[in-house]
Every structure is written in structure tokens, then in C-alpha cells.
């Protein structure tokens, strides 16, 4: 009897408590910036799928995640993840610039590989002082990427060819052109299928020295590439371009309502061309962290695929430079921590699957959040419209 009563009170207390917690949790969820809702939902979904896959593969999900986290959080891993993320950041930025205008540059892959090859070839043939040499190589890459993207832009403007198709297909053309140039033009005289080595003056310095000045020492062997600094500068520049210039304003407005921007005198064809040039230029830079920081030459083994990963990163980062940086870091981290999985006997492809699932779920989650937003906006409009829902009889309209 007595015990029963106690249990009862305890129970009610508990329920009330839970309700309270749920309420505060709900309030907190509502407080989260809405921009984060979709990516958070996507990551959660990806985690669920990956957990299921790990279980199916016979590995303990909990232990695997723990191992990945432990390995990934090691200082040298962090530095490596940051280095790896730079290329994804640049590719994502290039894609995002077009996404903001409802254009789709799916051709970052071809743009960055072609640009890297040309930059490597030109850079290897020059003899210049360090800063100038790096600048010239960057300029070549920007021009090459922009030129390749310009093909798709002009096709769209002149002939109405969808840039989705042209940029995608130009990737294959770029692959063939790269193979041809490597074999026939730039690699003449060598049998390695590679451009000549870049001289030291064209290489990007490490940031370790700079970090040392502010009292940070990286643990044994780790080296932070100079490209990280360049990427941060570029990210800030793109942010300013999008939010603080009239061009950026027109670009965003074109993305939101192209018909309206046209009525107000923003020439859509000019916007398409300029935006694609900017996007291609940024894409051209994406291969440089590897070229100028690690490889120093462009060969058959030059990494491929970052252009496509960039699309995923842009989607995950919701097309803002900061979001893209976070998404790129996540992808860099996943890639780095995949290394430990092999050693642990877990198929490391699980990471690739996770990346894929993140992208798919981010698209789905984005749509879910967008619909919720739209419903909310509609409700808002309805509520505001309520007072004048019944207009005065028309007969009373005296001009």
C-alpha cells in the first residue's frame, strides 16, 4: 500500500519531469538557427544508415565510431584532415557560387584537373622569385578553369544548352584533353606520363613557421599546408562578393526570382557568363593545394573526384562559405579516419558510403525543412491576412 503510493508519486514526478525536459528540448530545437536544421537532420540520418551497415558488416558500430574519433582527434590527424579539406572547400565554393544563382556547375571536376595540368606545365617552365611564381601558377589555373567553364556558359547563353548537361559532359572531354596533353605535349621526352617537377620557387610554404610565431607547435612530422591560408582568404572574399557587392546581390536575386531581376534590368545572360567565369576560376584553384603543396607535378595519378565531392560539400554547407568550410572539414575528417578502419579490419568503404548517404539525406532533409518553412510562411501570411478577409461590399468602393 505504502510502497504503491510512493511509486505512484515517484511516477507522476517522473512524468512531469519528462514533459518538462521535452518542452525545454523543443524550445531549444526551435532556437537552433534554421540553417542548421537540414544538415543536422542529414548527419543523423547518415549515422543511422552507417550504423546499420556496420552492424551488417559484422563490426561493432560503437567501437568503430570510438576508434574513428580517437584516431581522428589525434593532433596529426587533425592537421591532415584540415589539409585534405582544402581541396573540397575550394571545389565546394566553386559549385556553391553557381547554386546561389540556380545555376549548376557540375563541371568542377574537369575544370580543376585541366587547370592543374596547365598550371603545372606553365609553372615548371618558368623561373621566377617565389611569391610571383606562385601567383603566376595560380593565375594560369584560374584562367584555365574559367575558360573551360566559359564553354558551358556560352553554350547556355547562345544556344540555350542546359549548363547541367554541358558542364557534366565537358568533364569527359576534359579527361580526354588532359590525357592527350600529358601523353603528347607536356610529357615529351619522359616516359613517366607526368609534367616536369615544379621548381622550389613555385611551391607553397608550410604554415608551421607562422604557427610557431604565435606559439603553436605541431606534433612530430605534421605540417599545415600554406593552401589553408589561401583558402581562408578566398572564402572570406567569396563571402564579401556575395553579400557586400551589387553583383552578389544581383546573383542571389537572380537565383531567387530570375524573371523579376530581368524586369529590373539585370541582364540574365551577363549574369550567367560572369557567374560561370567566377565559378570556373575558383574551380581552377582546387587542384593547387595538392600540386603546389605535395605533388609538385601533374601525373596520371593526380587525384580525381574532388569536383564531384565539391557538389556534395556545397549542398551540405548550404552554399555559404562558412557552411562549406565545415562540410569540407567533415569530409576531410572522415577521409582521414578511414585510414584506421583498415587496420581495425572494418571495410573502409564504409566511409565512402557515409559520405554518399550524407549527401542524399542532406537533399532530402533540405526539402523537408523547406516545406516546413513554407507551411510556416503560409500560416504567417494567413494570420496576417485574417483582419481583412472579408472586404467591404463592392458597392461601397467610392473612388
Amino acid at each position, binding site marked *: 500500500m505504502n510502497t504503491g503510493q510512493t511509486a505512484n508519486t515517484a511516477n507522476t514526478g517522473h512524468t512531469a519531469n519528462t514533459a518538462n525536459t521535452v518542452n525545454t528540448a523543443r524550445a531549444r530545437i526551435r532556437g537552433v538557427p534554421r540553417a542548421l536544421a537540414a544538415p543536422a537532420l542529414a548527419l543523423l540520418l547518415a549515422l543511422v544508415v552507417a550504423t546499420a551497415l556496420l552492424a551488417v558488416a559484422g563490426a561493432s558500430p560503437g567501437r568503430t565510431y570510438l576508434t574513428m574519433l580517437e584516431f581522428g582527434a589525434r593532433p596529426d590527424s587533425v592537421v591532415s584532415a584540415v589539409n585534405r579539406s582544402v581541396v573540397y572547400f575550394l571545389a565546394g565554393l566553386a559549385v556553391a557560387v553557381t547554386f546561389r544563382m540556380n545555376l549548376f556547375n557540375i563541371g568542377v571536376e574537369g575544370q580543376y584537373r585541366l587547370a592543374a595540368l596547365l598550371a603545372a606545365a606553365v609553372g615548371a617552365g618558368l623561373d621566377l622569385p617565389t611569391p610571383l611564381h606562385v601567383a603566376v601558377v595560380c593565375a594560369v589555373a584560374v584562367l584555365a578553369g574559367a575558360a573551360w567553364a566559359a564553354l558551358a556558359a556560352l553554350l547556355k547563353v547562345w544556344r540555350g544548352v542546359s549548363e547541367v548537361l554541358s558542364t557534366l559532359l565537358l568533364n569527359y572531354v576534359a579527361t580526354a584533353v588532359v590525357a592527350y596533353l600529358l601523353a603528347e605535349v607536356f610529357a615529351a621526352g619522359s616516359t613517366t606520363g607526368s609534367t616536369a617537377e615544379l621548381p622550389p620557387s613555385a611551391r607553397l610554404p608550410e604554415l608551421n613557421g607562422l604557427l610557431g610565431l604565435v606559439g603553436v607547435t605541431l606534433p612530430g612530422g605534421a605540417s599545415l599546408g600554406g593552401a589553408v591560408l589561401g583558402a581562408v582568404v578566398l572564402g572570406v572574399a567569396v563571402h564579401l562578393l556575395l*553579400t*557586400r*557587392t*551589387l*553583383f*552578389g*546581390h*544581383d546573383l*542571389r*536575386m537572380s537565383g*531567387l*526570382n530570375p*524573371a*523579376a*531581376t*530581368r*524586369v*529590373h*534590368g*539585370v*541582364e540574365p545572360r551577363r549574369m550567367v557568363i560572369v557567374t560561370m567565369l567566377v565559378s570556373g576560376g575558383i574551380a581552377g584553384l582546387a587542384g593547387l593545394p595538392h600540386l603546389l603543396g605535395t605533388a609538385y607535378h601533374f601525373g596520371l595519378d593526380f587525384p580525381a573526384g574532388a569536383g564531384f565531392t565539391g557538389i556534395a560539400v556545397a549542398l551540405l554547407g548550404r552554399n555559404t562559405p562558412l557552411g562549406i568550410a565545415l562540410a569540407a572539414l567533415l569530409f576531410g575528417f572522415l577521409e582521414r579516419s578511414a585510414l584506421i578502419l583498415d587496420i581495425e579490419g572494418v571495410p573502409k568503404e564504409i566511409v565512402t558510403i557515409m559520405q554518399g548517404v550524407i549527401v542524399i539525406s542532406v537533399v532530402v532533409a533540405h526539402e523537408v525543412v523547406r516545406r516546413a518553412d513554407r507551411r510556416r*510562411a503560409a500560416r*504567417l*501570411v*494567413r494570420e*496576417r*491576412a485574417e483582419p*481583412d*478577409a*472579408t*472586404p*467591404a*461590399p*463592392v*458597392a461601397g*468602393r*467610392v*473612388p
Partner: protein
Amino acid sequence: MASSGTGSPPGVPLVELRGITKRYPGVTANRDMNLVVRPGQVHAVVGENGAGKSTLMRILYGEERPDSGDLLLDGVPARFRSPADAIAAGIGMVHQHFLLAENLTVLENVVLGAETSRRGLLDRRASGRALRDLGERYGLAVDPGARIEHLGLGERQRVEILKALYRGARVLILDEPTTVLAPGEVTRLFASLAELRARGLAVLFISHKLDEVLSVSDHITVIRAGTAVGEFAAGEADPGVLTRLIAGGDLPPAARAGRAESGPVVLRLEGLRADAVQEATLELARGEILGIAGVQGNGQSELIDALVGTREITAGTVRLGGRDATRLGVRQRRRLGLACIPEDRHRHALALPATLWENVMLGSEDLRRRSRWRLDRAAAREAAGEIGARLGIGAPSPDVPAAALSGGNQQKLVVGRALRGRPEVLLAAHPTLGVDVGAQAVIWDLLRDARDAGLAVLLVSADLDEVLALSDRVQVMLRGRLTPALPAGELTPARLVRLMTGTR
């Protein structure tokens, strides 16, 4: 399938709408509207643009759900959740803009979604035969194998009608069916309608054109301000009475006499041609409002585009403030003092997800010029705030998205934006379309005040009240041509309706 037309007992209407009310934010499209549709009748529904005809038909076709009121099918209450429900109940609709797959054949379009199959395979032969039968029976013959993209508008319309009949329609709704047709095709359409009526089907015929309505209908319902204001059997209807009912006899006649003194001409069109605009000539002076009246779809949209600078002018000239602007781009015209209230608020005027200040920046040439390459957020915010305060747009800050405003307040923003750069010429296209009465009054006052301060306003509107309430002079646009200008003082609503519909 299509022969079930006379299924309802005599005396019972096929369809009845009782007390239908439908509200949208800021407007009531239908108010306590009744409509009785009987078998074997061509039933015309006439009324001005925005009178609520389309909404009523969308409700009948299951595309919209009424806020209140009942729908009775063969005397039995029914509820449509989607057009599929309406089609299953025997209601077919031919929209004003056809919904056909251009690259498919006539037969494929007709059977799409209602395919006849035999052992799981499409039975083209059977459905082809059924289609040909229907065509012969109603005088709607179209080659079943022809691709839609190769067909003219008249044939496409026949395909749309066949599509509805193939699905067993007993009630056929035709929304402005004659606007796209050549005169010969209109005669042919009417012959088909007579055939449909003879077979016991009901045809709901939505139209502006009184002469056509009078020649083809058995019954006429006049809608005004969302509700039925008149019911006539064929023969009883008098064009004069109908015209007065459509226009609303209780309107003040001409609002005001034309202003005596008119300033120098600031906009001059001579023989302008641009797609559907066949011949537009007009002169607009400082300090006057020139109304361009007309039923929608007579070339007004194209005229607006040609003036804004987004549509190519194929012949004729535009002179803006004494300069030839025929070949100038949008921005260059704005710099010559042209401002614009675009035709369609959501499509052409605003980017709804963007903030108020961003929308102000987008459409303010002076702000854009002043800020050069930089985005002068402070100036745009200030301008948006001023517009909001002056016009009573209840927005908490210039940083809310335009989508959060009611339709009336969105339109106030558009009007305020157009007026704030001190323009010489204002192109006001349907400036109060779909806004509530309060916002309409504010906008009308703004336009009048601006005119009194010397602005030249070209008002393009399909709303009779608006044209008559605001204009000093009026020109009517009919089939791409502008009539000569008439002083507003000489116009009555009835005369304007006659001019707009091309009736004597």
C-alpha cells in the same frame, strides 16, 4: 463511356453549387455563390476579370476547396478532394492554357492516365476507335496520330475537349474557349457545343464576350464581386442589362473630368509592334493618367514588356522624355525616368524569399547607381523603412522576407519602390490586382497624388472600376491594337465594356 450524359432524372440538376464561399489572403474570391447546371444546356458564366469565375470553376473541378458551401451531384452532396474526384464524377475542364504534352500524339494525350489495356498491353486500336467515334459524333475530328506540336490552337482545343469526353464528362467546363480561336474556328466550336447539348451534356461556358455568350447559351449567370448577380434564360437577356450588371450599375459613372491643362508629352509610342502588340500609338503627358483598358490577353502583357525593355520591338518607336528609347535596355530606360509597377507581383515585381530592403535595392535604379559596385545595405534599409512607414506596411523591420507580407502590403512595397526615385513616367500594370480594398484605396491615392505632382502615369488594367476611377483619358486595347484616346468624362462603364469586348 461518354454516352452516360442523360443519367440524371429530369428536373434534377447535374451539378449544383450552394452558398460557396472561398477566401484567399486579402481577397474573397467567391461569396455565397449559387450555380445550378442542368443537362442539355449551354450555361454561360460571365463577369469581369477577377469577378470570381475562375475560382468557382476551380472549385467545381476539384482544384480548390471552398471554405464553406455545398456541392451537389445529381442532387446528392459530394466533396471533391482533387480533379481526379471531379473527373470520376463526370466533370471535365478545358483550361484557358492547354495542358497537353507537346511531343506526344493526339491519341496518347487523350488516353494519358485513362489507358485501355488488353492483357496488360496498351490497346491502341480500341482507344483509337473510341476516339474517332467521339470525334465524329461531336464534330471534333482530329487525326489521332498527329503530334500536338504540329497542331494549331483550334485543334488543340478539340483535343482537350475530347480528353474530357473520353473520360466520360457529363459537365464540360470551357474557360474562355474562344480567346485563342480564329472566327471560323469559333463557329465550328459552337456547332460542337450544340451537338453536346443535344446529347444531354451540360456545357459551362466562361466568357467575357457578350455577343458570343448571347449567341450560344441557353442560360446566363452574371458574376460580380464573387457572387451571382443575375440569372437569365436565353432570349430574356438584353445586352444592355448584362453590360450594366457586369460592370456594376452602382458605380459612379466617369470619376472625374479630364484635367484641363496637360503638360508636355513625356512618353510617345508610334506604331509600336511587338509580338501580340499589333499597333500601339499613344501620347502620355506630364500630370495625367492614361488608362489602357482591355480584357486580359489582348496584348497588354506584351505592351508592358516592350515598354519595360524586356521584349523586342519589331516596328515603331518609343520616345521617352524626348529621346528615342526604342533600342534602349531596361536600365537605360530607367535612367531616363521610367519607373515600373510590374504586371505580376510574384513573378515580376518581387523576390519573395528575399528581404524587403533587398527587393527595394533590386528595383531602385537610383540606389543602384549611387552604390556602383558596392551593395549599400544601409541606404536600401533606410529606403525600405521609409516606404514601410509612409505606406503603412506593417513590417517589423526591413529585414523580414517579402513573403511574410500580405498581398496588399507586398503591392504597397512595389508601388512605393516605383515612386520613390522621383520618376518622370510610371508604368503601372494592374497596380491593385488581387489586393484587399484597403490597400487598393492607398494605392489609388498614391497614384492620384503622384499624378497631381506632375507624374505621367500609364495605367494598364483589366479592372473597369480602376480604369474609370483613375484615368484622365482612356484607350482600349483589343486584339493587339489601341483605340484612339477618349476623355474619361465621356465614358460610362457600359460603353467601356462594349469597347473592351468589341461589341457594337
